[in-house]
């Protein structure tokens, strides 16, 4: 065991310098049962995330600068900004977190809805809100169908699917309420969505009663 003269403590055999003051204690280090593993701090995923983020910011800044220089205002560069944001919304989660097919799918469909709303705003300034009345319900119904295929082609995830259907019903009900308040009429697209969610939830509560209600109970416990 080596001794650090500065700190007055003994230093473990595997260390050549005192961990408290950094003073040199020995050039011969030996194995110690108390030693910790050597660590490589940089992971590929972190590096990939940092590079992607840098490229995104660089592209946005460059395009905005060109737009300002040419037109003296920010106009078409907003499309690039939105495009980059959309790519991050669709695939960004996977660069940070572990890949989860169901969550990835949900984010992808969110990106599609965002794109529809963006096109709707730029083309008609939302005077005819087709993205809300038609586009979003079709995307949501497609999401439910893809999720259904995904669930029944695999073993697991049925409880998540049951809850997804309930969420579909609740989301559609909220959108029906919004269309009543905003557009003063009932949008059939959302009614179809709500009906899909309601019929499926009803079927689940009938055929898989115990499973469905226990799933609701644990997720909604107060």
């Amino acid at each position, binding site marked *: *065991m080596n001794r650090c003269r500065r*700190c*007055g*403590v*003994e*230093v*473990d055999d*595997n*260390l*050549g*310098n*005192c*961990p*408290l*003051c950094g003073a040199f204690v020995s050039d011969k280090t030996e194995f*110690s*049962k*108390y*030693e*910790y*593993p*050597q*660590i490589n*701090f940089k992971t590929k995923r972190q590096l990939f995330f940092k590079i992607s983020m840098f490229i995104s910011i660089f592209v946005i800044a460059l395009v905005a600068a060109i737009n300002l220089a040419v037109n003296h205002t920010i106009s078409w560069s907003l499309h690039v900004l939105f495009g980059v944001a959309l790519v991050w919304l669709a695939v960004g989660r996977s660069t940070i*977190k*572990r890949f*989860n097919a169901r969550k990835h799918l949900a984010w992808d469909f969110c990106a599609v809805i965002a794109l529809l709303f963006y096109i709707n705003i730029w083309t008609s300034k939302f005077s005819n809100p087709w993205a809300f009345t038609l586009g979003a319900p079709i995307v949501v119904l497609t999401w439910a169908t893809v999720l259904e295929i995904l669930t029944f082609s695999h073993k697991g995830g049925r409880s998540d699917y049951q809850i997804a259907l309930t969420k579909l019903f609740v989301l559609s009900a909220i959108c029906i309420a919004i269309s009543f308040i905003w557009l003063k009429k009932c949008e059939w697209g959302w009614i179809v969505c709500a009906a899909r969610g309601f019929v499926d939830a009803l079927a689940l509560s009938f055929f898989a009663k115990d499973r469905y209600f*226990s799933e609701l109970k*644990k*997720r*909604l*416990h*107060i």
Partner: protein
Amino acid sequence: MKNAMFDKEWFKLDNAAKIYPAARSSRWNAVFRMAVVLKEEVRPDILQQALDDVIDRFPTFRVTLKKGFFWYYFQYINEKPKIQEEKDCPCSMMRLSGRGYVFRVLYHSHRISVEVFHSITDGTGNITFLKTLVTRYCELCGATIKDYGDILHFEDDPTPEEVEDSFARYIDKSKGTLPRAEAKAYQIKCQREKRGVLNVTQGSMPFEQLHKVAKSFGCTVNTYLTSVLAYVVLNRQLYEKRSKKRPVRIQVPINLRKMFPSVTLRNFAGYYNTTIQPVEQTFEEIVKVLDAQLKEKITPDYCQKFINSNVSLEKNPIIRVAPRFIKTLFMNMSFYMVGENLMSCTFSNIGNVVTPEELYDYIDRFEFVIGPQKYMNHVMTCASYNGTSVVSFSRTAKDPILERDFFAVLSKHGIDVCVNSNRR
């Protein structure tokens, strides 16, 4: 698959557990480690077998964390956990994605570590699990144990008392609650390490020497170590010559099982904040102040009020019906206001770990390490076993200022300290 213990596949988080998933961040996720250093190198195949044997004895460990609409909850996992080779810093970020376990068993060289997310258990629960695991491991290595003592035997059935939420059991609203408002405390100025890096410095020393020195100051080992920590933090503040002096506050966790009989393996710990005013004081004066605070204020009445405060907050009807994302915001805010920002440092002492005598030939020492904190940069812990105490500092700060001063004081008091670290 239903858990035979609960007769259902999920259960609610206990009172103290609820703050951790909500307040976690990219730097902090409330992971702490209990480790044991063996005299022989760890054999992974035997360790895996030992884990397979003991996991069913601890149903509260066999879970994953899931998100509900109002609260998080634990769901039973069917697959058995796998041991992992240690490759990261101690208490590195744990994925709480809703599929994997919220604890991990790691091995490296002679060390077996159990790292847990604080929501499933506290220090007592974790050390109980580790003791059972190591006992089983040693048995598989050839040890014959006559008397298990307080170690839970892996073949016994878990009892309902071991999985209860003892906070709910011991609430007594008539005793009142604690005032939470306290002034901000001094925290050592330092440069932070990058995300994911935790520096651990450990000092091992003979327990006898520690006990003798503590006795010479007329206090317990726990009070002595708290006093040394408070003394070095106070001196650091006086050295920094800040214009605005703040009190030095050391958070000391309390095992509530000592005051309220409970054998729960879930969270049942409170804490007490010891405070030293920022004026020049001798070490003896600090010992006197802290001894008085720890003796006089940690009473059943204080602990009862602590339980009441925690439970009344959880049972508040407005908080209960708020969706989880609003609760997360609220809890993050309260964690900032009444949490770590009010503390200079935390000192947690698991005490003397007792195992059957037959294991003395297999086990060298026990260690206790707390992971990176959200706002604090330094945490100190202590674990003793078979005449050796190990004081561990975990820090997200770059420089080992606090531990250098701390071990210098111990050396000055005549204690032989041997230090090791995870950074070379």
